[in-house]
């Protein structure tokens, strides 16, 4: 176990190192001088040569690339992600300000997904090949196939405009979370419903479940007490692994609902060529993702000790 943990940690560090090099390299390949474009935006007029020179010195843009990267990396290791070109703040402050909204959204979306998928998955498996089952399967298919940007607009028009309690945009209270979480959660719910259904169908065929049934226990007890518990193990894992889906989806959902999270921060930074922010957000996303994966792997082993993680590498 310890060896496994060390190995996973080492490979996570390698992955993060690769992410840092790749994002840094990508960003520096961009044509155009960030100094001029950013100053122009700020001043509302053409910056002078001295202003451009001053900006370049301030942000270390005169150094050779490998020195810039080394500076950046040593900063990152001490928690300093650099200074945004455009916002008068450090990247760390910006990320700290935007991350909570995204985490809230991710958690709420997962909650929505569980609330939809667990009942739907159970009903689907228990009443297999009935109208319920087909309906829930079709719902799942729809959920995974509908583009989030369209679903989001649909919800704004159908729900937010007529209902004063549901805001169209922004972040803050629980009410601001409802529509984005539903938009993002439906896709995830679809994946989980299908998985739970399959997993439950499999478990219902297991000998111990059959035994329980033959003992004359009512179907509800059989399903809830015996089958569901083991059927949920893979589901929990998948929900964890779906974190990537949630982060991917959060970008578009945050844009649709103008929700100030990491996704909108990233999109704005890309369009504004605010490279330190782009690099910071990508790195933080990678850290989040790698950590979740690691945790999911470990909890999986904890939940189901039969799994030999050494072998399944």
């Amino acid at each position, binding site marked *: 176990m310890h060896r496994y943990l060390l190995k996973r940690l080492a490979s996570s560090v390698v992955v993060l190192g690769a992410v840092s090099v790749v994002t840094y390299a990508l960003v520096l390949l961009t044509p155009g001088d960030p100094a001029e474009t950013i100053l122009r935006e700020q001043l509302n007029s053409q910056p002078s040569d001295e202003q451009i020179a001053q900006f370049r010195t301030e942000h270390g843009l005169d150094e050779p690339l490998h020195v810039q990267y080394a500076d950046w990396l040593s900063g990152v290791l001490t928690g300093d992600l650099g200074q945004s070109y455009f916002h008068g703040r450090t990247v760390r402050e910006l990320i700290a300000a935007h991350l909570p909204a995204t985490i809230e959204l991710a958690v709420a979306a997962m909650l929505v997904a569980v609330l939809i998928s667990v009942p739907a998955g159970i009903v689907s498996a228990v009443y297999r090949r009935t109208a319920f089952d087909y309906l829930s399967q079709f719902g799942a298919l729809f959920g995974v*196939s509908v583009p989030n940007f369209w679903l989001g607009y649909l919800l704004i028009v159908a729900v937010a405009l007529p209902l004063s309690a549901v805001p169209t945009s922004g972040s803050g209270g629980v009410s601001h979370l409802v529509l984005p979480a539903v938009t993002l959660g439906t896709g995830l719910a679809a994946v989980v419903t299908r998985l739970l259904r399959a997993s439950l169908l499999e478990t219902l065929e297991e000998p111990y479940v059959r035994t329980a049934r033959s003992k004359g226990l009512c179907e509800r007890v059989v399903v809830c007490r015996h089958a569901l518990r083991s059927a949920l193990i893979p589901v929990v894992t998948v929900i964890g692994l779906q974190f*990537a889906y949630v982060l991917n989806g959060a970008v578009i959902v945050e844009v649709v609902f103008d929700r100030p999270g990491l996704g909108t921060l990233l999109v704005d930074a890309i369009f504004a060529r605010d490279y330190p922010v782009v690099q910071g957000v*990508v790195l933080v996303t*990678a850290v989040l993702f790698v950590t979740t994966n690691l945790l999911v792997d470990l909890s999986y082993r904890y939940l189901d000790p039969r799994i030999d993680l050494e072998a399944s590498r």
Partner: protein
Amino acid sequence: MSTIDDPSRVEAVGRSNLRRALRRNPASLAGGIVVALVVLVAIVGPALVGDPNAGALSNRLQPPSTAHPLGTDPLGRDVLTRLVHGARITLAVAVAITLVRLVIGFVVGLVAGLCGGLVDEALMRVVDFLLAFPGIVLALVIAGILGPSLRNVLLALAVVGWASYARVVRSSVLSVREEPFVDAAKLAGISRVRLIRTHFVPNVAGPVVVLATLDLGGVVLAAAGLSFLGLGAQPPTPEWGAMVADGADYLRSAPWLVNAPGIAIAVIVVGFNLLGDGLRDALDTDPTEVNR
């Protein structure tokens, strides 16, 4: 990444099996029909409906009518006509992305599986890296940096999405290598190339086809998403994601501008997903676990 596909499940399946399996599953048959219809529209449609940019300002923002079944846009262009042209663009982009992914993944998987050792180790670390990252975020950065165009969206999504193909191909190669007939064939002096053609390709084709079909749905959504963010198609290209983004300004006054392309995207993605599910069941192979 403890969920790796089990190579022992990979089996070559004859065509007749496939046909029978699809027939048994009406949902995937429906998916197949939807995909076939959209493909048909994409191929012959544009020639039938005329110029997607034709129209007059005086005719702008007309609600759906017999003359314009899906209404007109802010420049007086017929939305149905643009949707039909968009089918070709949307499909072509999705297929191109999937093909590039498949080719890169195929080559990498093949090389990793055949060479083994350090090469394998290095390539698989790259694969791990790509699988260990939210693809859209990376694609967004790549496309954003290269500048908005459909070509760059294609490039970005292809670059971030080939890893699952490489895994599937590699594990197929490994499973074939273990088979006793390979040693026998080597002894008999059969060349590697021939071995690949006769034994390996039929083995790997099934899972790769299933993976690609299921992937197509996701690719359509991802490409449309990037276009929606303004990184893809350039005006006046009637790409579906861009049409949704452009229509959003008229969300209230002309909802058909958002709904028509939104529904179109959902329909084609449903089609690909149903078809992919059907193929997966029919071929009894599940390569998707590594794809998430």
